[in-house]
């Protein structure tokens, strides 16, 4: 069981780091949102799942509470993260930021 927790923590750390690096590496707002949202959500799923496994494995009142609360935190994160990034992308586009080197921009044509 320990090995499973280590693997999950490692995957979570790697993908969270990938999100942070993507934030630095990509050229404009939209591609940064791509990298940051996808990678941090995926990494957080694995990191928090490691905590959930650890909580259920330890068992009892405290372990169970830890696992259930971590699961609820994961649920809220899954719900709010894509919605927040969607709102940011929409706000950025309405605020007049154009995608970098875009081959097509249908949303701009609409206005």
């Amino acid at each position: 069981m320990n090995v499973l927790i280590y693997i999950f923590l490692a995957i979570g750390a790697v993908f969270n780091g990938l999100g942070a690096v993507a934030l630095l590496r990509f050229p404009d707002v939209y591609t940064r949102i791509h990298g940051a949202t996808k990678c941090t959500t995926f990494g957080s799923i694995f990191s928090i799942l490691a905590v959930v496994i650890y909580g259920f494995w330890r068992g009892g009142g405290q372990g169970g509470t830890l696992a259930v609360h971590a699961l609820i935190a994961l649920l809220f994160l899954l719900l709010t993260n894509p919605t927040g990034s969607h709102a940011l992308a929409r706000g950025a586009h309405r605020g007049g930021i154009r995608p970098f080197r875009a081959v097509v921009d249908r949303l701009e044509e609409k206005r």
Partner: protein
Amino acid sequence: MLYSLAAMLRAAEWAVTAAFALATYLVLVLWTGGIGLWSLSELIAGAVLSAIVGMVAAPILWERGGFRILQPHRWVLFFFYLVGPFFLAMARANLDVAFRVITGRIRPGIVRFNPGLKTDLGKTLLANSITLTPGTLTVDVDDATGDFYVHWINVKSLEPKPEEVCGPFPSWARRIAE
């Protein structure tokens, strides 16, 4: 008769919202005492709080209908969708982003397509799925026509079909939410 029907609908909305709030509260305070898994004070506090939450939130949450989501077979479908195709697509999306972070090869653009979804829930589900899956990010949704404007990191065609952008997700969203 009509008035009483509307009143019954209000009561049902309140009951559903309060029940959901109570369930959330009870999950949060698991393992606190002797009655089942809960203590008496937590049960009383949960009942009072969820009644208040139902009164405040029900008129906002059910403003545009949407009782369809209460059918249990949709929850089962949603669960299988989450652990099956959605999770696979998400894993693929992350490897895709890793590849693009390393090589820096992008061809971005904002494309438009119309998956033909009608309910708010279906649109929300599809938009969130698109954001978390390979190379796509929902920028805007036109509520009147149902058009999706999607930032695509690797544009393959200028007038794409829904299937080209996001695979099987529109049909899943239709199955779950409509």
